């Protein structure tokens, strides 16, 4: 932790860090006593070759072999992509490199030296920075405060730092501002992290790891919640860092993005290396995708033909002020029976509020929500009665983790016959119902007496789907329904969405995953700054158009001949 080191040395280092105008990233590293991949190692032929090398790395969790004798290396000045589906072992490998996890066996070398981190702080002291999907900035503090929080000791210093160590706010602020200017980022030093958009938080975290003297970056699914323009900016930043000498391990499953960015690529599947260090420029992406998944059928879109019926969900003029983010500003939406509408946008642009209002859980400041003509605005009970089903993005909000499967599955109809008589629950009926339902929705294991919290993420989502979609809902609102699921579970959930629509339900998919929306939705609505900035049929969805409108810019279709103007054309679009 952060409370050791010699006061004198620490002060020198800080003075170096905050040197007015003169500081640069490499100087920050020098001040931290970290030799870059430059002069120190150039004389040493072996070490200059690799920034990181892991040989025969294995790691097991209980009975599961998460990594099985994996070899992986990273050259200085390259971006090496690590791809694979969920559970392939990417994150485990990243954590081992970062020092968060220890390998059961195998040897690691960092810039030519033996490297055996025992904990996270060893990794950061050695200059390895791990930027996780769930960012690790403390959200209640400012960026400048985060830079000092957990800052590693200078390597080589064993003397204790004084306790308590004074936090110098102006120095920290200056450091953030200097690095931001240098990297051409607009990261505000004095804003509370919670108030920053996700993309800026991510930049702030990368910036801080550089300030801490990182000489190797691991980015874990960095683009999963970003819009197209933000992803572009991220790619630019990565390339720039690479060119300035910071090698990057880039974990993703988005192949098009990797083609733009990565030099080499390694595919993991079920803890093993499938292809090692392929040159991206020469690789066949289609083939890589197959290698990743192993089962090509999962990649195929099986969109059934859906027949549109009457309007079932109607939202008109929704206004909602929110504590963080823009809330909703005059959002209207109508969805017909058999229709799947995708709501896309950069996270924090009103998606959660929309999901809440459509399902009656949030009362809008103005506007109405109707289901089959019945008003349900701001009344979760009425919405449930009208047949609303919700898959919340935050799964902790959708399941009672300490209740059993049976108790969870009954939540919507606890008082209905045959599950209760005279206000007393009939456990045998509930159990039977639970087993049948769990089997129907492929919840594993389908054991009614099991705690819901003990299921895996995918099975929790299936459990929630089973509860919500058991009796064909009139309206299904699904927020990020397959986020973080393995392909099989994801497939199952998507099929359930199609099934609901096929049986005459109106489906709203709210997701930052554009591929998911492209696969499921017939019609796309773009939410930006709490407003609907564009609507179009899914066949008109292009990344250029999405990029522009998700960023709140107007889409000028003139560049693309033959396209219909935004907002018309889509079926059921409200004016």
């Amino acid at each position, binding site marked *: *932790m952060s409370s050791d080191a010699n006061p004198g040395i620490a002060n020198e280092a800080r003075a170096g860090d905050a040197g007015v105008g003169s500081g640069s990233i490499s100087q920050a590293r020098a001040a931290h006593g970290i030799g870059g991949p430059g002069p120190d190692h150039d004389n040493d032929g072996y070490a200059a070759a690799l920034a990181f090398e892991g040989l025969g790395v294995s790691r097991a969790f209980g009975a599961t072999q998460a990594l099985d004798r994996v070899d992986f290396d990273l050259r200085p000045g390259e971006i090496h992509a690590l791809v694979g589906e969920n559970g392939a072992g990417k994150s485990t490998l990243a954590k081992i490199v970062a020092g968060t996890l220890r390998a059961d066996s195998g040897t690691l070398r960092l810039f030519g030296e033996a490297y055996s981190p025992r904990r996270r702080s060893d990794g950061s002291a050695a200059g390895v920075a791990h930027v996780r999907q769930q960012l690790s900035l*403390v959200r209640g*503090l400012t960026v400048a405060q985060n830079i000092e*929080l*957990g800052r590693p000791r200078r390597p080589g210093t064993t003397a204790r730092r004084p*306790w308590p*160590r*004074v936090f110098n706010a102006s120095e920290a602020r200056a450091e953030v501002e200097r690095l931001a200017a240098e990297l051409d980022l607009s990261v505000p030093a004095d804003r509370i992290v919670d108030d920053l958009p996700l993309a800026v938080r991510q930049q702030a975290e990368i910036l801080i790891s550089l300030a801490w003297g990182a000489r190797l970056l691991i980015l874990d699914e960095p683009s999963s919640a970003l819009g197209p323009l933000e992803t572009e900016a991220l790619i630019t930043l990565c390339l720039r860092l690479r060119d300035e000498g910071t090698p990057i391990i880039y974990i993703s499953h988005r192949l098009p993005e990797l083609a733009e960015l990565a030099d080499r690529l390694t595919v993991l599947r079920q803890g093993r290396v499938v292809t090692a260090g392929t040159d991206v420029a020469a690789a066949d992406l289609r083939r890589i995708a197959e290698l990743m998944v192993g089962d090509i059928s999962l990649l195929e879109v099986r969109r059934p033909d859906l027949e549109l019926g009457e309007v079932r969900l109607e939202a008109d003029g929704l206004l909602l002020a929110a504590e963080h983010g823009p809330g909703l500003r005059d959002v209207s939406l109508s969805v017909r029976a058999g229709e799947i509408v995708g709501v896309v946008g950069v996270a924090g642009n009103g998606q959660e509020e929309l999901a809440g209002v459509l399902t009656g859980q949030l009362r809008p400041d103005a506007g109405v929500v109707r289901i089959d003509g019945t008003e349900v605005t701001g009344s979760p009970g009425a919405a449930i009665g009208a047949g609303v089903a919700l898959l919340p993005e935050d799964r902790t909000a959708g399941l009672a983790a300490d209740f059993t499967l049976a108790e969870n599955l009954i939540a919507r109809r606890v008082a209905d016959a045959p599950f209760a008589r005279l206000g007393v629950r009939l456990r045998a009926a509930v159990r039977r119902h639970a087993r049948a339902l769990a089997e129907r929705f492929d919840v594993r294991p389908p054991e009614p007496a099991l705690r819901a919290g003990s299921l895996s993420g995918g099975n929790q989502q299936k459990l929630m789907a089973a509860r919500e979609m058991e009796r064909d809902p009139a309206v299904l609102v699904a927020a990020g329904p397959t986020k973080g699921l393995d392909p099989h579970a994801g497939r199952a959930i998507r099929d359930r969405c199609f099934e609901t629509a096929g049986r005459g339900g109106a489906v709203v998919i709210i997701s930052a995953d554009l591929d998911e929306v492209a696969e499921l939705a017939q019609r796309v609505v773009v939410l930006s700054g709490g407003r609907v900035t564009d609507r179009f049929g899914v066949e008109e969805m292009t990344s250029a158009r999405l990029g522009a409108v998700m960023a709140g810019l107007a889409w000028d279709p003139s560049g693309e001949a033959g396209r219909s103007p935004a907002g018309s054309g889509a079926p059921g679009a409200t004016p």
Partner: protein
Amino acid sequence: MGKLAELTFWTATFAGGMRLATPLIFASLGETIAQRAGVLNIGLEGFMIIGALTSLYVTVESGIAVGLLAGALAGAALALLMVLLCVRLNANQVVVGFGLTILGVGLTGYIFRLTTPLGGERRQVNILGEIHIPGLSDIPFLGEAFLSNSWMTWLALGLVPIVWWLAQRTVFGLEVRAVGEDPDAAFARGVNVIRVRSIATLLSGLMAGLGGAAITTGLVGVFEPAITAGRGFIALIVIIMVRWSAWGVAVGSFAFGLADALGTNLRNIVSDSVPTEALQMIPFFVALVILVIGARRARMPKSLGFNYVPDR
């Protein structure tokens, strides 16, 4: 009733407020640190009473300095139990806090009865006198009410800026806030969540022990069962009211101490027309009002009350 208009009445009441605020300042300052770190210690009452008994008994034997130290250490010993159960073993903080209250009250009751035979002599110390600062303490009203304190009160007031500085101006303060707001992120930053929470809890125990010591050695001079009279819970209310701010703790504690002193001093004046019980209710009524006002704006540390379980 005419006495209400006399300055001496108010001088005495404000001075009494300072005196009665002293134990609260100690206890709530420490608790502020613990709560900011996400540890909800509702066992403050137990910590205080065990500090009260220990400091008194040790003072009788070895003098006030050793006595205070022993009181603080007794509070810390109970806090160590809390660290073990909650921070290390993830036991429910409210259950443990409640259990520690009963433990503290029960243990002190046991020791007191065992050492004090019925009708026998109670152990007693002279309560701390005021320090007279030439010039300042003689200023009418202001000096007499606010600047004529015992050194225990001065110590409490002196701790306020220290705790403020620790919370606002040091990396430890940042770490405390970080582990109270978002322990997962703090852990990922490289902060040792368990250690920071342990230190914060121990500090709260030390200071609650001092708060208890301030009651026996500073206010009463003897121990009796339930002598803390709910001050541990009042301290929790003070913290909510002042939103975890060190300076606020001083003000909030004084507000409560003043209400307490007012209730006591009024008794001498109006006891014929108003039942004493109604006057005794004044501080609790003030606390209720404070609680209601405080709750409307309270923004608690996000993980307050929840243990940290490393989640990978």
